[in-house]
Each structure stands twice: as structure tokens, then as C-alpha cells.
């Protein structure tokens, strides 16, 4: 393992895959001369030239659609959206083209595109720039959705996403780019799409989460519960939201009989609500308490620092929820 930042891990994965396959190219706003709005593509223009690291105009539907078009004739585009808030402008291309071309052509076309960039709250960015929108994509059959949580999973999942024959929505987090951690040194040690990680094994309650919530909320809460309450949490990092590794989640719930789902985004019709429904349907008899869900409050995220803080999930929210499902105190 070698230590690096989340940003460097993504950069390394991109560079290696571009080296490996001439049909991989990176396109997006500011990915070239500016080195990426979040510097993920640092140095790539100099290394691969402007045909493969392409500065696009601010034209999200246009360049996402162009990428889909190139992908379905055999290229492997990595399209960077500056943030997923702006991918909303390209949603038609993703939903009506990327997710449909294989099916409506009767299997004649594949769309091996990666659409990647950050999402979620970045810190006082106000409501239009702070959204967690993964549920928009998870809802759609025909596309895959992954959300890495650490430098290692970022590196290994991005490589899987680029090599995957289906469209992959690869959602990063602004607040994770500087996170440092060990990363595999084996360039073929990919993280399979569709596989969750039991990050912290435990026996008393299952916490399901993904992306930034893992290290920012779930794991700190688990530590508090272990030291203050003697409650042993099993923390599952979903990593791949579609397809979802429901098997790992259900096995854990069958063992712990309790579940708390921690999600950065809003509560209504969300990924967490779907996971809760699946657990209710498939592990109902194993549950000793209602499933709890911790979400962002159901409001546009305010700018004011104090309001933003209370609107987003916090470790204390999870601690309380776990205590409730364990009927502790």
C-alpha cells in the first residue's frame, strides 16, 4: 500500500487507464489547462495532449451526449461534470440515451462511459451546489452508480468503472478530495462494481452508509458507541449503489437484527428508503427493532454555517438512533 490523497488516487487511476487504452479520453469543463476544478486531472493534459484531455465549453447536455455517442461506437470516455448539480442539465442524455441504447437496440450497442465528479455538501456552498442526487440515477435501470469513500476505493472503483461495458455514474465528494489513506500498489487490484465492504465488523447493529458519510459520520459514531455504550456496530460501506450488494446487507442484518441507514441526501424516495424497504421485505422476521434512517433534513441546504451543520447528518444523530434500535437508555 502507498499513502496518497483521494484526489491523487483518482488521478493515478485515470492516468493508468489512459495509458492502458488509447480509446479512453477525459472531457469536461476545465479538465485541461486549469487541471480540473478540483485538480483531479492535474498533469494529464501535459502527459496525454489535448485530444485526450479535452476542455469542453459549458455545455453539459452537449458533452455528456457527445461522450455517450463516442462510447456506443467503441470509445471509453470519462466525462467529468464539474459537480453533479450541473449534471442535471445532462439528465436527458443520461436517462434517455446512456441508459436506453442497449435495450432499445435489442443489445446491439453498449455504452461504456464514465460520468464522474463531486456531489454532496462541500461546505457553505448553499443549496444549488450542495446536493446529493445519487437516487436520480439509482432509480434508472441501465446505468450503474458507484460512490467511493476512501482513496483506495476511489482508485480501484474508477478503474472498474472505466473498464465496465455499461454507463457508470461515479460520484465523488468535494470534502473527500484531500482525504489521505493507503492505496493498493497493484494496478490490477480492482474493486468489483456491485460489491459492498464491511468496513467495521460488529455484532450488535448494522449501519449501512456510503461515500463521505462513512468516515465523517458512521465510523465516528461507531467508536463513540463502542466506548460509551459497549455497543458493537457493524458498518457497511455500500460503495456500489446500483447494482447494490443487498446480500451483504441482509446477511449483516440477519446477524445483528438491527439496522440504521445513514445517507447524506434527503429522505424522500431515496437510496436509503429503498434499502430500508428491501430489508423490511426480505429480513422482516430478523428485525428486533424498526429500521432507523438518518438523512439530511428535508430542506434546500442553507448557507448559514450553523444551519448547514444541523441540516446534515452528524455522528450524534447516528449515536442516538443506534441507542434507540438497541433500546439502550
Amino acid at each position, binding site marked *: 500500500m502507498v499513502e496518497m490523497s483521494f484526489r491523487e488516487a483518482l488521478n493515478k487511476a485515470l492516468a493508468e487507464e489512459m495509458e492502458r487504452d488509447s480509446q479512453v*479520453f477525459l472531457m469536461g469543463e476545465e479538465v485541461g489547462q486549469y487541471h480540473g476544478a478540483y485538480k483531479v486531472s492535474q498533469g494529464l493534459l501535459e502527459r496525454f495532449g489535448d*485530444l485526450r484531455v479535452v476542455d*469542453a*465549453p459549458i*455545455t453539459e*447536455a*452537449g*458533452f*455528456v*451526449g*457527445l*461522450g*455517450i*455517442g*463516442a*462510447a*456506443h*461506437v*467503441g*470509445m471509453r*470516455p470519462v466525462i467529468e461534470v464539474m459537480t453533479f448539480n450541473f449534471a442535471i442539465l445532462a439528465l*436527458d*442524455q443520461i436517462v*434517455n*440515451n446512456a441508459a436506453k*441504447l*442497449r*435495450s*432499445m*437496440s*435489442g*443489445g*446491439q*450497442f*453498449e455504452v461504456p462511459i464514465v460520468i464522474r465528479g463531486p456531489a454532496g455538501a462541500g461546505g457553505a456552498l448553499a443549496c444549488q451546489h450542495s446536493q446529493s442526487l445519487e437516487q436520480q440515477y439509482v432509480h434508472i*435501470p*441501465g446505468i*450503474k452508480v458507484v460512490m467511493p469513500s476512501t482513496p483506495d476505493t476511489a482508485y480501484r472503483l474508477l478503474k472498474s468503472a472505466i473498464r*465496465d*461495458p*455499461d454507463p457508470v455514474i461515479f460520484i465523488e465528494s468535494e470534502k473527500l478530495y484531500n482525504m489521505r489513506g493507503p492505496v493498493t500498489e497493484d494496478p490490477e487490484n480492482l474493486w468489483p462494481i*456491485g460489491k459492498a465492504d464491511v468496513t467495521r465488523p460488529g455484532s450488535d447493529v448494522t449501519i449501512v452508509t456510503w461515500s463521505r458519510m462513512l468516515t465523517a459520520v458512521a465510523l465516528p459514531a461507531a467508536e463513540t458507541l463502542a466506548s460509551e455504550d459497549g455497543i458493537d456496530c457493524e458498518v457497511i460501506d455500500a460503495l456500489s449503489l446500483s*447494482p*447494490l450488494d*443487498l446480500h451483504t446487507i441482509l446477511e449483516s442484518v440477519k446477524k445483528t437484527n438491527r439496522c440504521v441507514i445513514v445517507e447524506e441526501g434527503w429522505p424522500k424516495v431515496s437510496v436509503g428508503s429503498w434499502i430500508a424497504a*428491501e430489508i423490511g421485505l426480505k429480513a422482516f422476521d430478523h428485525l428486533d427493532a424498526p429500521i432507523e434512517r438518518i438523512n439530511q433534513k428535508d430542506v434546500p441546504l442553507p448557507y448559514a454555517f450553523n444551519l448547514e451543520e444541523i441540516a446534515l447528518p452528524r455522528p450524534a444523530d447516528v449515536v442516538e438512533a443506534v441507542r434507540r434500535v438497541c433500546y439502550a437508555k
Partner: protein
Amino acid sequence: MAKKAKTPADTSDAPKAAATESVARNPHVPEPKVILPDDKLIEMYRQMLLIRRFEERCAQQYQLQKIKGFCHLYIGQEAVAVGSVAALEPKDYIFQTYRDHGHALIRGISARETMAELFGKATGCSKGKGGSMHLFKASAGMMGGNGIVGGHVPLATGVGWKAMYNKTGEVVLCYMGEAAVNQGVFHESLNMASLWNLPVIYICENNLFGMGTAVHRASAEKDLYMRTAGAYRIRGVRCDGMDVLDVYKTTKEAVERARTKGRPTFIEAVCYRYRGHSMSDPATTYRTKDEVSIWQAKDPMVRLQEQFPGVFTEELLGDMEKEIREIVQDSIRFAEESPFPDESELWTDVHVDYPGYPGPKAN
């Protein structure tokens, strides 16, 4: 619209007044725009007739409820598909809208596969999963019909990107209705195609209506071909979409430019659909019968006959009618006898196969 675009020495894309004189105003049969060998003329006529007869039977099969859902007929516009596809090489690509039966029939999809697709049968070109609006054939560069107005324009642009990137010399023909030029992605695509020298020809089939909305009620610039040169330095040309030879000549020039210079072109082909927008539209509220008759008098097949009376003898036309009637009849028989897709097909072609997928148990 910037009629006087700032034109530095290098741009060859400024509007050229002489080449873009309005043809829509001329009701008379013009001189042939280009001279082609007889067999090529006959093949063009044959393709137009195939589309016409095929679609007449589609309408009938729709009434019989063998074809369901949305079904958009191309009758009247045949010259656009036939003239433009004739200018392509086999390695080139075409993208269409939902009004795609005509293009399919002359670009690698047999009448059988097309009709079977309309019937929703497993033997259809998209295995029955696409239907009328989504006729695909990858091996023929038939990139399918798209149901979202303007939605396919960036895709075609992306295939142009691939041709430029890999220097394959392929050209992409992207058809659209005139209503699509008001969509954002149209403009986004043209901007990128010009910026990056992509070999894409955007061909706008201006049949004067988007459903019931006349073009002059939807586009502030009535001369659609004027919309691209000033804004994107993409040459805009207008041709007579009721004249297969004019469409051919215009497309041929654009294809050459795309192949040799990598420059995109925007073609406005002025044409008319004789039928309603789709099978559910009687087309009575937004246009007159007289207007339809005026356009029917310019029918592209009649015009070709009138231009080359020596080629299109009664005997030739009679034999052709018979041959085509049989092809269409055979396609209906084939579609009728073909099975619907197996129920297991519900779970295929969604993702690549991977463990746990496909199947009804997949989450």
C-alpha cells in the same frame, strides 16, 4: 441573425447567398440538379417507392392493431432520406428521429426486419424491444431512431468525435425535424462540432410542422439554414427536399467537405409530410387540404419521372410496383408468422450480464 458574419480569411462557412436561394418558392419542376447514370436514378426511384408502399401498408396494419403505440409515417418526405443516404459510403453512420422507417429501409434493414420490429416481434431489427421509433442496425451504421426531439444530436456529434479522434474518415449524417433546431442540445452540438472539426452533417427535414406548430410559429428565424453560419461558422444550405437529386447533390458536397476537411454542414431540406404527425393525428386543424394538394403536386417520384420520361417507362414502373408489392407483402407475412420475444427477454439487454443479473431477482 448575423447575415454579415465576421468572416476572417479562413472561414469558408459564411452563408453564400447564391447557393442558398429559396427553392421552396418555386412550384415548377426544375431541371435535374445533377446528372446520374440511369441505374442510379432507377434505384433512387425504387427506394422511394419501397418506402411509400411499405408505409401505406404500415397505416393499414396500424388500423388492424398489428402495429401499436406511436407510429410516424414518412410519406411525402422520401426524397430526403433517399437522396442523402445515396451520398454515403457503407462505413458512414446515420442517426434519425422517431420518423425512421424510410431511412431504415434503405440503409441496411430489410423490409422483413423493419416490419417485424413494428409488430414487436423477436425477429425485428431491435428484437422487438425498440418498435417503430427505435430501428437500429449496428452493422449498417444505422444508429437508430430517437424518441426525444433533438436528443440524438449530441450522440451523432459524439460519433463524429470518434471519427475525428481515430482518423477513420467516417462521416455522420444526423437527421432531425425542423422543430429540433429550437432545442438546446442542437446548438450545443453544433458549437462543439465546429469547434473541434467533426465530420457531421446535420440534416434538418423541414416539413413545415412540428406536430401542429408551423415552423414560422416556432422559429424566430424563418430561414432555418441561416441559423448556423453566423452563430457557429457552420455552413448552412437549403435544398429542395421534394427533389431527390437536389438532396443528393447537396449532401454529396457536404459529405465531401466532412470527409476531406472535417467540417460539419447544416442542410435544410424543405419537404412536406402528406399524413398526420402520427397515426393518431388526422391533420385537420392546423393546415388545409389545399395546402396538402399543392405539395402533393410536387411529389418527388412524379418529379423524377417527369424529368426522365425516357428512363421511367410504363413497363419499368409496372414491374417495379409488382416487385415492391411482393416485398412488402412478404414482410407482413414474415412479421405475422414471427414469434413475440420470449418472456425471458424481459431481463436481457439492460446491462452487460454479470453474476446476479439479469433476472427477476436482481435488485
